[in-house]
């Protein structure tokens, strides 16, 4: 067992807390029992003592009459074991029911001692083999102390009972402490075993099986929370990891060929000495290629990271779409496409301005790309049921039935016209819209044009 483990610590704390609480309870029980027993004895002693004193006072000087004295001592010594001694003011014993044989000397010295006291007192003392409880009281007549009375009773029974009680309680106490310790250990084991299970499971999770999950105990307690939190973390790690892999794959897929071309161009140029004009031409072409590579890389990065950074700002969507409307008009010029718009002012969303405009521009770019000369493109921005809705409609070539399920796949290029792009436009737009907790819908009929709609949740600012 680990000494620093929670199970061990909990057990120790249980045992310690119980031992302290248990000893306090048992101790107070013992003290109360003891006090009750002594109180009982003391009150019996004093009651008897006071009665004896009353008789003694009534008989007055007759105390010295041996017969009378013996008679009343006999009467009061009917209680078994009860000892009654009366002494005069000088401490000399004048009467005694002593049955303690050799102990008379002890009693005589006791009497001399208490004779000086003028108050009643209780005390315990051992005489011979037995322990006695004493009560003494001065006998006063007309304000003058004329003697001392002493009443005693053996309390061996009390002491024996008390010591029996102590041993019984000790046995109970020890077994209770042991029980608590084992119980505590068992409870702690029960409480920590799900944690151990989770730990074991997590140890087994590596990069190759990130999609595995920790079992969530349906206990509704902190352990369930912990397991769920772990699963959430695993989910995020898994998707981050997948994104990373996808990114690497995309980079390899998309950049390898153009890079090879670029290197080939440069290598060819370097095979022999050329005129500066030729170098210039090669460099310019290389720059164009490099720029295209950069664009592609940015696209792939956009796609990979559109879901990550979460710092959102209030975006004037109306202004963004208006800007893009102008871009659309310019893009449409070459094909003499008519761009119509219906952009409602004052629509705001929470998000990233550049990413959002990127998504909308991709839709516009597609619309113009796949629309024939003198066609028509429509850009709308509206508010429906609190959502901001951007609609890009064209009457172009549309999307074939076989292509439609694939339009959001990376690098998918439909069998459309020769103007095919990177194959990343729609996936990027979708990723951006989804990162804004929105939805992108694309509907198209081959030959009848395409409609792309972005739904964005309303701002709450």
């Amino acid at each position, binding site marked *: 067992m680990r000494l620093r483990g929670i199970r061990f610590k909990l057990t120790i704390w249980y045992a310690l807390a119980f031992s302290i609480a248990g000893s306090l309870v048992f101790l107070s029980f013992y003290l109360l029992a003891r006090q009750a027993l002594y109180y009982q004895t003391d009150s019996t002693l004093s009651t008897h003592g006071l009665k004896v004193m009353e008789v003694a006072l009534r008989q007055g000087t007759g105390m010295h009459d041996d017969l009378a004295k013996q008679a009343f001592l006999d009467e009061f010594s009917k209680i078994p074991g009860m000892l009654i001694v009366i002494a005069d003011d000088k401490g000399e014993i004048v009467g005694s029911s002593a049955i303690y044989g050799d102990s008379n000397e002890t009693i005589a010295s006791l009497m001399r001692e208490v004779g000086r006291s003028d108050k009643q007192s209780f005390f315990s003392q051992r005489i011979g083999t037995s322990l006695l409880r004493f009560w003494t009281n001065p006998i006063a007549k007309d304000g003058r102390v004329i003697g001392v009375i002493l009443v005693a009773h053996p309390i061996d029974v009390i002491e024996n009972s008390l010591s029996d009680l102590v041993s019984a309680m000790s046995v109970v106490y020890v077994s209770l402490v042991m029980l608590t310790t084992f119980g505590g250990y068992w409870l702690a084991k029960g409480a920590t075993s799900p944690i151990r299970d989770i730990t074991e499971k997590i140890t087994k999770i590596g990069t190759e099986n990130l999609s595995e999950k920790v079992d969530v105990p349906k206990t509704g307690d902190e352990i369930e929370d912990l397991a769920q939190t772990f699963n959430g973390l695993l989910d995020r790690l898994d998707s981050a990891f997948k994104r990373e892999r996808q990114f690497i794959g995309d980079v390899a897929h998309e950049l390898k060929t153009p890079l090879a071309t670029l290197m080939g161009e440069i290598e060819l140029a370097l095979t022999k000495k050329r005129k500066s004009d030729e170098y210039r031409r090669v460099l*310019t*072409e290389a*720059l*164009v290629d490099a*720029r295209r590579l950069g*664009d*592609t890389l*940015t*696209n792939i990065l*956009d796609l990979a990271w559109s879901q990550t950074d979460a710092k959102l700002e209030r975006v004037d969507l109306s202004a963004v779409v208006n*800007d893009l409307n*102008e*871009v659309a008009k*310019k*893009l449409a*010029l*070459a094909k003499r496409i008519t761009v119509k718009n219906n952009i409602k002012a004052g629509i705001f969303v929470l998000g990233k*301005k*550049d990413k959002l*405009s*990127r998504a909308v*521009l991709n839709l516009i*770019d597609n619309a113009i790309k796949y629309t024939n000369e003198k066609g028509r493109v429509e850009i709308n921005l509206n508010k429906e049921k609190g959502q901001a809705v951007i609609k890009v409609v064209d009457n172009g070539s549309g999307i074939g039935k076989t292509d439609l399920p694939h339009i959001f796949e990376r690098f998918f290029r439909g069998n459309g016209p020769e103007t095919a792009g*990177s194959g990343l436009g729609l996936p990027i737009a979708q990723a951006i819209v989804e990162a804004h907790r929105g939805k992108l819908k694309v509907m198209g009929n081959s030959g009848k044009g395409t409609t792309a709609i972005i739904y964005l949740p309303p701002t709450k600012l």
Partner: protein
Amino acid sequence: MADLVVDPTRHLVKRGARLIKLTPKEFSILELLLRRKDEVVSRTVITEHVWDYNFDGMSNVVDVFMAALRKKIGDTGKKKIIQTVHGVGYQIASENEA
């Protein structure tokens, strides 16, 4: 070519006596090129200046705007006011104005 007049305070552009209507974006492109006369201004710089964010991966947007701008200011002759620096960007060189 000195007949092109740009008034940045009033957002006015004149070619000779003809008043040219430019959109704010077109105007700010022209203004940027003039302010950096004789420098080659890259597409990236232009997009960041005009749209305050960049159209990464869509550098042809600038070309489209440039084409529109040229058409509006009648810059379609053989000797152009705005020159294309292939693969890099655009430039307005002073000797063309002289």
